[in-house]
């Protein structure tokens, strides 16, 4: 309220002569500039405080992972003063993290590759080819997005068990190798590629699949990248399904392994944090590399439903 009273010209006259009005306008502009400077400072302060809260868990886990064990709970908390790399050696010896890494990498490669390949093929059919039942089929594909994973969980496990896939990479990869979201995303991208290019290629003697590979797909690189990043993060961070279909420690993914590791070494925080940092780095690294795709993808997928 007080600020608004400031807004009035000093002599208390509003409007009046042209000179006075102009004076009032410049005054208002000055007030706005000052307010903006103050606001900007306040915003940066809020952002800083929030960022400390957001980042503290990361800093604390890194710091702890580098502490000697008897100083686990001693300050400083957010930046390391010790560099006890032994903790990492201990953690990697206590659990087969290398094996978990390998499993996760194989699973992730399969899921990312599968989702991109199958999405590109299906999306090409839906976006470019005329065949009977195309639109109903597309709706069925999209409809699967609505069924929550909990509904599929039990029968999917029973199917995997019957196929003899429990404790194999097949179980980790195949059920998740097709993503309806990916097909949708890719179809949107393909529709944006001008059809004239297809026709030109067709006249030049290119096969239909050749058009997908040589024309449509190269022009949809951002969509491919977005889907790739999403699939990577999904796969790297997934937990429930890998936990259910892997029995032996040799088939654990990194998230399952980490959870088991916590159950075993519940309060050996230095070792545990070394494991956490180990398991988090690839996804964080990818995020730093690909954040623009990710953020854009999130924003559009969110806004388009």
């Amino acid at each position, binding site marked *: 309220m007080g600020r608004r009273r400031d807004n009035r010209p000093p002599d208390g006259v509003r409007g009046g002569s042209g000179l006075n009005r102009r004076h009032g306008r410049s005054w208002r502009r000055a007030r706005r500039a000052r*307010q903006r400077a103050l606001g900007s400072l306040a915003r940066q302060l809020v952002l800083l405080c929030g960022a400390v809260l957001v980042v503290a868990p990361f800093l604390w886990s890194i710091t702890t992972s580098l502490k000697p064990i008897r100083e686990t709970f001693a300050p400083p908390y957010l930046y390391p003063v010790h560099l006890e790399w032994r903790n990492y050696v201990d953690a990697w010896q206590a659990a087969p993290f290398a094996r978990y890494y390998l499993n996760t990498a194989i699973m992730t490669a399969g899921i990312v590759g599968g989702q991109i390949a199958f999405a590109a093929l299906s999306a090409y059919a839906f976006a470019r080819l005329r065949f009977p039942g195309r639109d109903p089929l597309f709706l069925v594909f999209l409809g699967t997005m609505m069924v929550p994973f909990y*509904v599929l969980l039990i029968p999917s496990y029973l199917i995997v068990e019957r196929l003899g896939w429990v404790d194999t990479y097949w179980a980790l990869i195949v059920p998740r190798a097709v993503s309806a979201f990916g097909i949708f995303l890719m179809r949107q991208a393909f529709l944006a590629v001008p059809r004239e290019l297809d026709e030109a290629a067709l006249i030049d003697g290119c096969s239909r699949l050749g058009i997908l590979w040589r024309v449509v797909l190269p022009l949809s690189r951002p969509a491919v990248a977005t889907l790739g990043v999403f699939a990577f993060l999904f796969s790297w961070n997934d937990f429930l399904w890998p936990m259910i279909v892997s029995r032996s420690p040799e088939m654990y993914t990194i998230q399952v392994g980490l959870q088991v590791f916590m159950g075993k070494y519940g309060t050996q925080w230095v070792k545990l944090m070394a494991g956490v940092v180990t398991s988090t780095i690839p996804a964080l690294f990818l995020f730093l590399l690909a954040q623009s795709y990710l953020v854009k993808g999130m924003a559009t997928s969110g806004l388009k439903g």
Partner: protein
Amino acid sequence: MKERRIKARNRYRWDEIRTAIICLAPAAAIFAVFNVVPTVWSLVLSLSDWDWLGTARRFVGLAQYGALLRSPEFWNSLRVTVLYTTGVTVLGLVAGLTVALCLSGNVRARAFWRSVYFTPAVTATVAAGVVWVYLFDPAGGLVNLWLRRMGLPGPAWLTDPSWALVAIIMVSVWKRLGLNTVIYLAGLQSIPDEYYEAVSVDGGGVWAGFAHVTWPLLAPTTWLLAIMSVIDSFQVFDLVYVMTSGGPMGATEVMGLYLYRQAFRLFHMGYASAVGWTIFIFVFLATLLQWRVSGAGGASIYGASTR
């Protein structure tokens, strides 16, 4: 109309159909085996009594759903899920909008801040959960350390039935903040500057700009984020499993965990499937709402709120 349809059918070309079959066969096969069949199977299971261990499956109609509605454990899990969902959605929206407002307009180092706030969203839930268990450690954890420093008593968080869910909600808000911020930011950037200038010419300050321009024009974004948050939160599993496994005394047993325990610990496959379909009903209702908001209904909400 009919004529045109016949013409369209005539336009199908065999080489296109053949290519389409080649393109769609692998994806359709996987979808059929791991989406369509399980969906139908799950429906059948939810109408049967089966404990997985060899006894014959018996058709029991809707008895599992009846048992569900009589089970206090189920109602507890529903209550916990609704509490969790409400907490995460409301707090997440408030936090996301706050950060987005701070980031909109001419802010220095926006890309940097955005990345910082987005980091938790790409961190694995299991890893994040492990770190937060450590942060909530009653004796040496950072949370209680900071609370003590401010002269506040810290609860035993994850082992205290009245605080465990609060702790999990806080972690979920932390994880969701980046997504909410980014989408709110996209919404904010679509509001023309002239609207704020108009408010300012009318003598309105920052608050008036928020109340008469930002908030009403962001209504569709808010709706969308709220519904997305409800859909995700209703299906939470990883975080709760890692942090509390549903304890203490069922205080954090969300529906996903309840289903998991019924299916993979107690082997009540039929009953667990019924729980799954209950989750589906809630998620489906939220999805319908999302269609109304983002589809044709979006415009009307938009119009109503700007009036």
